[in-house]
């Protein structure tokens, strides 16, 4: 379990008036969702968390170690990122080689590499497709493949950028289970998402951004209990709350239908 400490961070793109500005943020939970509107700064924060671009001001520390000072190998072992668009990550001739590519930069033991690839492919259900050209896969399969490439390296921290996007329902379930498993086995998972139902059902902690600033940090129940920050972040509450409000004029916080049922069937 790692602790990410962000202090006094400023980042601005050249020729743009958008600025990401985070005074103090520590991410110490195993499952954290980052939410906000388009252009709120989520992706910029992710880019900074990969350590591949440096902020103009401030620093990011992971377990009290400055991210900027990690060697490329340490970085690969610490942080893995799964991008929104899987097509920009893939280039190898087969699914299997794709998973092997990053891994073989860290490991030299051929047997270990083989075993790891097998495991990674199995956990996303792509074993059968291991000899296929990655560009012949469907979009959800491509996305699962990019997850497998990171699973093979087994970093401490997983960054998922919009993992639910363009996935079908079975793949969404698979990824949810996978993320929960990672969190239970001592990894840290941070996910950018628009899907508030998913946040409400899956994430115990969340961070909301708006216009480059952190507007909320804490448990989802608190976030959704006051409509102001939700609106400020350009978001909608979980659908179950909308149903309760519109049908029963009930303005309490509910995260899932199960949550609603528990609170009501008791009486």
């Amino acid at each position, binding site marked *: 379990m790692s602790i990410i400490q962000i202090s006094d961070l400023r980042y601005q793109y050249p020729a743009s008036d958008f600025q990401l500005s985070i005074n103090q943020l520590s991410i110490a939970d195993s499952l954290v969702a980052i939410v906000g509107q388009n252009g709120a700064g989520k992706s910029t924060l992710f880019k900074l968390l990969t350590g591949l671009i440096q902020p103009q001001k401030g620093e990011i520390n992971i377990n009290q170690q400055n991210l900027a000072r990690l060697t490329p190998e340490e970085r690969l072992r610490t942080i893995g990122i799964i991008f929104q668009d899987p097509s920009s990550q893939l*280039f190898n*001739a087969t699914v299997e080689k794709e998973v092997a590519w990053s891994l073989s930069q860290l490991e030299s033991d051929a047997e270990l590499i083989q075993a790891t690839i097998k495991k990674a492919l199995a956990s996303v259900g792509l074993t059968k497709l291991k000899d296929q*050209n990655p*560009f*012949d896969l469907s979009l959800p399969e491509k996305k699962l493949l990019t997850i497998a490439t990171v699973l093979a390296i087994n970093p401490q921290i997983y960054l998922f950028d919009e993992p639910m996007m363009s996935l079908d329902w079975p793949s969404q379930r698979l990824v949810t289970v996978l993320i929960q498993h990672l969190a239970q086995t001592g990894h840290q998972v941070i996910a950018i998402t628009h899907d508030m139902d998913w946040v409400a059902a899956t994430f115990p902690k969340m961070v909301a951004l708006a216009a480059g600033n952190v507007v909320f940090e804490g448990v989802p129940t608190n976030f959704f209990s006051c409509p102001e920050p939700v609106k400020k972040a350009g978001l909608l509450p979980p659908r179950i709350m909308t149903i309760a409000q519109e049908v029963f004029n009930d303005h309490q916080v509910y995260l899932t239908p199960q949550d609603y049922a528990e609170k009501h069937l008791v009486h």
Partner: protein
Amino acid sequence: MKAKNINNQDSRFSTWKIHLTVATTTLIPAAVGINYIAKALAEGLKLPLWLGSLGTFLASMLAGPTAGAISGFINNVIYGLTLSPVSTVYAITSIGIGIAVGILFHRGWFQNAKRVFVSAIIIALVSTIISTPLNVIFWGGQTGVAWGDAIFATMIGNHINIWLASFTDEFVLDLLDKFAVAYLAFLIYRQLPQRMINYFKDNQ
């Protein structure tokens, strides 16, 4: 049933009307873009190569010699207009490269690594034969690449004919460049999904 280019306009340009499908019309700008990027990446990595014909190669392989030739031509015209005006005249070279790649590919000379070797030599020759007169007319025989021009200067200094010196200068550079581009194109083409290859083949 394939969508063919219908153009009923009474046009002054009809003399050079070439039958292009919509697929080829969108492939060519993409190929030109790839030429640009490949060239920029080669410069970024400080490679002693141009790589600026990678897109032209791929367009020829996917949609035939005409598509390749047009990609090459437009590439040099646009490049000439925006960055280096003199390179416009090398459009003729690019047309030659596009046609050569298209024919060689069609005849199966891009099937395996060994054959690509032969193809690269032929394409380099084509390119050199067309470029040398242009080099002589515009640059007194130089190519503008330092170490190629060093060879040129040495040969001229030893009273070797300017045409032969210019040819050597160009050929050495072209050989290296076309080897690199031909193998890159070969490796990349193998990776393209079958549906993509079929699409451009169908819509030629």
